[in-house]
């Protein structure tokens, strides 16, 4: 029987960990779209999962070529959303790594940082607009509705989550850059 789960992740490492835990419990991910995951029963730990930030949007021809190449390497794309792709591979006991050199990791990290910064600024603009509209209504018209503070709170949580993920990626990027100065891969 298939299991459908709605869950939001900002941190792809935690997302991968969760998918791996589900796989260990005999639940293999078969569909992914943004915050929607569908699992079906499988042998425990039959697959290994990776969440990959694609250089281009998932529908871009370059991304299609890349995912096709991965498929030729027996890496299956379970689903995509915007820049993200959830990939899986049959568990053969070998570690499942997509990027194994610092150059590729740094490039991917930079792209992801850029994307999160744009998303952060966009959400921040919406937050400020929402807060301004709420305060304007309250002070000018004397209207007070619980809807506005609730919306502001939800958007604030989004903004904090995105900001946190951006900071985490920046730290990872700096660590890769430091290590690259000494080691090759």
């Amino acid at each position: 029987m298939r299991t459908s789960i709605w869950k939001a992740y900002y941190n792809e490492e935690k997302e991968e960990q969760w998918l791996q835990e589900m796989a260990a419990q005999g639940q293999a991910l078969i569909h992914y779209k943004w915050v929607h995951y569908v699992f079906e029963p499988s042998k425990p730990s039959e697959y290994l999962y990776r969440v990959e930030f694609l250089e281009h949007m998932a529908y871009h021809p370059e991304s299609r070529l890349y995912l096709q190449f991965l498929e030729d390497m027996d890496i299956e794309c379970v689903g995509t959303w915007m820049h993200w792709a959830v990939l899986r591979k049959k568990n053969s006991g070998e570690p499942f790594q997509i990027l194994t050199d610092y150059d590729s990791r740094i490039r991917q990290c930079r792209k992801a940082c850029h994307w999160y910064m744009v998303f952060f600024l966009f959400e921040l603009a919406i937050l400020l607009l929402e807060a301004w509209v709420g305060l304007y209504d309250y002070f000018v018209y004397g209207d007070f509705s619980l809807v506005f503070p609730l919306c502001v709170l939800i958007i604030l949580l989004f903004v904090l989550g995105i900001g946190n993920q951006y900071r985490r990626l920046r730290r990872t990027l700096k660590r890769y850059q430091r290590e690259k100065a000494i080691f090759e891969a």
Partner: protein
Amino acid sequence: MPESSERGALTEGVYYILLSLCQPLHGYGIMQKVSEMSGGRVSLGAGTLYGALNTLVEKGWIQSAGSQENSRKKEYCITAAGQQAILWEMERLQELLDAGETFREEKT
């Protein structure tokens, strides 16, 4: 041919990819060959390999050798420029090795 200004150190991955392509191979074959040549020490991720293959094709160090029969997997093989890059890298590695040997002799 690579310009002299491009004669920097090759990464281990690129060096082994070039060596592996003395015979036409597809992506999975390259990964296996590299792992075999390095005694399992160098393991290329699929994403890293994809980026490296595209860059090497752009530089003219490798080229597409079509696809195997009954397979859509694209194969690659090394070009004369790629062979030259290997030779330059071997010279560079030899220089590093010689410097290390001198250091060892001085210490003993």
